[in-house]
């Protein structure tokens, strides 16, 4: 595995990827097209050609030898960014649902806040009912367990300052990671803001086999409540 880094180290885009061979290349290309070069892709033990496809690009490419979940992959990416002296980090989904044009605004907000949370517009009719319902349940459970109410507790697009990177300590490996970040905001008294982001729910992202299922969501809630 080779480290391919660019000279600019001010901010990094972290992309956790699991079985995304169809889109990972185009997602990286899209980030390139709007000027982002410092990209860290964490292949979370994919069983397809995600790693090979990502290796064709000039990025920092990391690989989990076993699938450990989205939260674990993001944490690995954030850890790598910290080691590479990143000042700001933005997390970005690998399935192409996020718009790279939203990154600029998020980084700008990091001048005044420690954490910027991407907020999807759930009033949009194109967003599936499953997503809307799941988000409300996620918000509610996060509020009950961790004491912070936000409009989108499960958004994968977030930006972190160096201060946040250093003081956040998370252990969740899977989808509850997103809520655990909110616990860390409360625990470390970090300043935060939610900012609207665009989402593109494509046929691809909806048909993906590993997306959060109803049973998976219930398991996530149970893990959040019963975790020691």
């Amino acid at each position, binding site marked *: 595995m080779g480290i391919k880094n660019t000279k600019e180290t001010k901010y990094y885009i972290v992309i956790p990827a699991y079985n995304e061979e169809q889109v990972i290349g185009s997602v990286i290309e899209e980030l390139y097209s709007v000027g982002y070069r410092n990209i860290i892709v964490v292949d979370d033990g994919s069983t397809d050609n995600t790693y090979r496809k990502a290796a064709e690009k000039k990025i920092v490419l*990391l690989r989990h030898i076993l699938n*450990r979940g989205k939260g674990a992959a993001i944490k690995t990416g954030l850890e*790598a960014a910290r080691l590479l002296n990143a000042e700001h980090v933005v997390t970005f989904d690998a399935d192409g649902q996020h718009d790279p044009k939203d990154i600029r605004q998020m980084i700008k907000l990091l001048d005044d806040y420690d954490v910027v949370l991407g907020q999807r517009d759930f009033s949009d009719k194109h967003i599936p009912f499953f997503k809307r319902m799941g988000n409300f349940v996620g918000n509610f459970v996060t509020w009950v367990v961790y004491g912070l109410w936000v409009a989108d507790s499960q958004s994968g697009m977030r930006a972190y300052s160096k201060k946040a990177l250093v003081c956040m300590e998370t*252990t969740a490996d899977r989808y509850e990671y997103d809520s655990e970040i909110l616990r860390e905001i409360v625990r470390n008294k970090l300043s935060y803001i939610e900012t609207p982001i665009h989402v593109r729910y494509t046929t691809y992202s909806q048909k993906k086999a590993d997306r959060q299922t109803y049973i998976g969501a219930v398991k996530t809630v149970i893990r959040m409540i019963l975790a*020691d």
Partner: protein
Amino acid sequence: MQFSIIQLILGFISLFFLINRIIRFLKKERTQTGFKLLSTLVVWGGILFTSLFPRTVHIISMNLGFGENLNTLIFFGFVIVFILLFKLLSSTEKLERNVTEMVRKEALKDVIKKN
């Protein structure tokens, strides 16, 4: 007031879990939240109360229309299952975290070397 052996055992177990959670909460451990403290107080506090004051609980359960013997059995079974569930979940979580840490260390090997 005299307590039977089973009351004392249950009382000690409940106290252990209660004190453990309260200490961890007061220490402001990373994973401890008000919700977890409240859940522990309700569940283990309830078990402690039931073990120490079974008559009071009996009166309450009779007023609510529950039976006697079978419910006592179910109650003890519930306590045992609860302890096992917590222990099992806790050890599985620890194992999972260790595996993830090993996988992460391996993934970051080159970045660490480079720095």
